[in-house]
């Protein structure tokens, strides 16, 4: 199975619901800054609002990192509005909610479950050039963690800015000293 890291964003055009308004969105809107595409199965479900709320609570952090968040489901933008009108949780969301009823985006990212007309729970992080730098795809019932996603965004930005000559540091105070591993190349 081929992976999607480095895959470039392809042209698309969808309608979205954003802060009380209907707006068109194309691939051009996702270029020039970091973008998160946050697919979820459908509006008016139970797990989704908790994920979307979690993301909304971390949204300021994403914006501070120069990243826009786009939630995507296979509903229309009208359904997004109806959901926002019916739910205080969704009403409070200030990132764009894209409608993808024709499955254009879900197919492009390989997360459409055709027989159900729903997207898997999937997250894609795109760099300012529109290339996928990380993604995770969950089965329907498995939720995601926006705080962890924010940490990954920060890591991806760091690597984008400084190259990949770094190792992530996971400090565990008191951990044992690692068994030495001598690399003779360069010494002899």
């Amino acid at each position, binding site marked *: 199975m081929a992976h999607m890291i480095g895959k470039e964003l392809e042209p698309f055009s969808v309608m979205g619901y954003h802060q009380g308004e209907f707006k068109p969105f194309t691939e051009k809107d996702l270029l020039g800054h970091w973008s998160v595409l946050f697919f979820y199965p459908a509006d008016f479900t139970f797990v989704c609002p908790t994920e979307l709320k979690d993301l909304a609570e971390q949204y300021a952090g994403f914006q501070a990192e120069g990243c826009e968040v786009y939630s995507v489901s296979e509903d229309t933008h009208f359904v997004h509005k109806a959901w926002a009108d019916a739910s205080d949780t969704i009403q409070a969301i200030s990132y764009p909610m894209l409608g993808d009823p024709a499955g254009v985006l879900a197919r492009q990212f390989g997360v459409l479950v055709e027989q159900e007309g729903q997207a898997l729970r999937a997250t894609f992080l795109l760099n300012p050039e529109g290339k996928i730098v990380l993604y995770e795809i969950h089965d329907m019932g498995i939720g995601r963690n926006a705080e962890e996603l924010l940490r990954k965004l920060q890591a991806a930005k760091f690597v984008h800015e400084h190259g990949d*000559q770094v190792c992530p540091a996971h400090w565990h105070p008191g951990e044992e000293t690692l068994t030495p591993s001598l690399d003779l190349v*360069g010494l002899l």
Partner: protein
Amino acid sequence: MPLQPEHYPAKSPLIAGELEGQLNQLLSKLSAPVTLVCLLDGGEKSAEMAAFVNHVAGLSPLLSCKFLSPGEDPAVDAALDASLLPATGVYTEAGFARMVFHGIPGGKEITGFAGALLNAGNAAKPLDKPTLKDIGKIKKPVDIRVCVSLACHHCAQLVMSAQRVAWENPLVTAHMIDANLYPALVKQYQIQRVPLTVLNGTQAVPGGKTMAELTTLLARL
């Protein structure tokens, strides 16, 4: 009471099997005496480092070690930076060789430690002329502190380069710091990724560097 090497185990469990053989092979190339001076406190990591240094010093007749507590020798405290213990400095007959290790150089860092011993023991591979010229372009004193994690492969190479620059240029001192042991340092420089190189206590530079990148960076200070 002054610390003595015999107060600590002569062998370290970190140096076992194939590694001991590899170190023996490397250290057989030493052609000049090298002394490892350790600044130790009463902590677990100091005891671990003492055993490690004892063990290494026992692998070559040209290696010796000396253990000190902070305050015993102000010059050593200053050279090795007694605020980050345990610390091991590399000394030759000419004195401090400007290569220091804060924390046990385990994991990938054993390579940098071995490199420092080869430097001081006049047994390192010679550098090419352009590199030596670049190192000579560093005209101001530089204190290099490479913050590492022991599992980081990018870190070890940078530490080796920094130590080599320090060995070749008397204006440069290079410290390897196992950042895991110093949470205040991690907090101060908000270290989330390694290596992070702190230059003269002010400029923090993230990421691995080739020797050429490092010398260019240092010459611009």
